[in-house]
């Protein structure tokens, strides 16, 4: 069995529209890889293909040696969509527990404690609140807990902080790094934020404009655990600048 996510020659066309040119990428167990690219470059499409929510036109994805559908059935994927997608009739705790409650027969692992996770993200006092009583950032924290509560070895995140203001967004990436690091969870993270890409990733795959192709993969050599003061570090700036140039080059192709 080949551990990790392996993407080989994945492309996607919608009718005559080529969304994604053939892409190759690997995510090793415990590794955080970010797909960075401009809007409409196909990074979300690639993530959805990995999650088994979309069929590729060409190519193969394997997760721990099997197809994405098997990974879904085994609850190996914690998926975080762009919007929090909380169920408004469930309390914060019930929302956080949702994926544990669904498809229970497939719970192969000892599941993380939802109350502990809510405590870690600062929502212990809001366990019985309803989503409409929370701010956007708090709702997205519940969505993160919902994914982490699966205890899945793979997390797929589709621009989860895109709708948040800059300050909340920074808090969220710091929080996400804190949650991920002790777990050895592999993360495939989609964003168009340079700071998010640098702060969270071990590697950043930069995509060109549509049809998206990976123009370069940049290794982020920053120590872990990552802490917020890292964002004032010259190495951080240097990587951010390099990514910006790569994005600009990709936009001109």
């Amino acid at each position: 069995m080949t551990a990790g996510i392996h993407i080989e020659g994945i492309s996607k066309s919608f009718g005559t529209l080529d969304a994604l040119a053939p892409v190759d990428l690997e995510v090793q167990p415990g590794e955080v890889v970010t797909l960075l690219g401009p809007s409409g470059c196909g990074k979300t499409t690639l993530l959805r293909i990995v999650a088994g929510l979309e069929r590729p036109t060409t190519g193969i994805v394997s997760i721990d040696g099997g197809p994405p559908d098997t990974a879904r059935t085994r609850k190996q994927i914690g998926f975080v969509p762009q919007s929090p997608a909380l169920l408004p009739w469930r309390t914060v705790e019930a929302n956080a527990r949702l994926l544990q409650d669904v498809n229970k027969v497939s719970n192969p692992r000892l599941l993380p404690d939802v109350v502990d996770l809510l405590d870690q993200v600062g929502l212990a006092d809001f366990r019985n609140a309803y989503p409409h009583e929370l701010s956007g950032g708090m709702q997205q924290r519940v969505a993160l807990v919902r994914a982490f509560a699966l205890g899945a070895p793979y997390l797929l995140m589709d621009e989860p902080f895109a709708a948040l203001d800059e300050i909340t967004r920074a808090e969220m990436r710091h929080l996400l790094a804190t949650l991920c690091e002790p777990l050895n969870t592999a993360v495939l993270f989609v964003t168009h934020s340079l700071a998010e890409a640098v702060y969270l990733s071990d590697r950043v795959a930069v995509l060109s404009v549509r049809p998206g192709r990976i123009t370069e993969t940049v290794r982020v050599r920053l120590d872990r655990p990552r802490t917020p003061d890292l964002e004032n570090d010259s190495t951080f700036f240097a990587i951010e600048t390099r990514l910006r140039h790569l994005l600009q080059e990709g936009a001109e192709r």
Partner: protein
Amino acid sequence: MKQRPAVWATIGVIAFGVVWELFVRIGDIKPFALLEPSRIVRAIADDPTFFLRITWSTAWHTLAGVAIGLVLAIVTGAALAAFRPLEWAVQPILVLIMVTPWVAYISSIILLLGAGLPTILFMVSFVTFPPFVFATVLGLRSADVSAREVFASIDASPFDVFWRLRFPSALPSIFTAARFSVGLGLAAAFFAEGGSASSLPGLGATAARTRLDQTLGAPVLWGSILCSTLLGIGFLLGVTVLERKLLKWHPSQRFTIG
């Protein structure tokens, strides 16, 4: 001046009653055509047990019929929402049921099912079924797309998706349908009770008997009509209370400025 909707509503109802009373008295209208509100109220006050008994009976007929219609509609709606071709096939039939005046074919239903409870329950569930089906299909389809993907990401079973996501998402539109379905169901129960001319107690059956046997008197007819109005109001209140309780999470049930 302070805004008091309840006070103004009461003033409106009293004013309407006064105009009605004067219109009947001054115009010397025949009692079976229209009776003064004071005499209607007196008729009910003279024999409250009788009116309570027939109102209860019609309430039971309506609620049972609406419940049957609702359950069948949810099952049908779930099937239609899952298979588009089935929806395309069934939609014209539902529209036919909705647009055809049911009073036109009720005698045929009585011939088919016989006078009495089966006809009443059939009519109530039959007329409330299409609006509930449309509401269910619309509601099931309106479930949040991102939430559907979250469910799909762990290969949730169709039952889990239905029970934990789609059905709660459909509740707001089902309640909207319920608001007018209870009125529709009450009318169908009233008419079916009358049409079936059975010995069953009920507001519709009583009203029909006063037309056949005028010794029962106009006060009994108009008492039955007023009781059915009050029953309709009671049903609407019941739906509203249930909606507040079950949909407290929904924006329609939250009171905000603007």
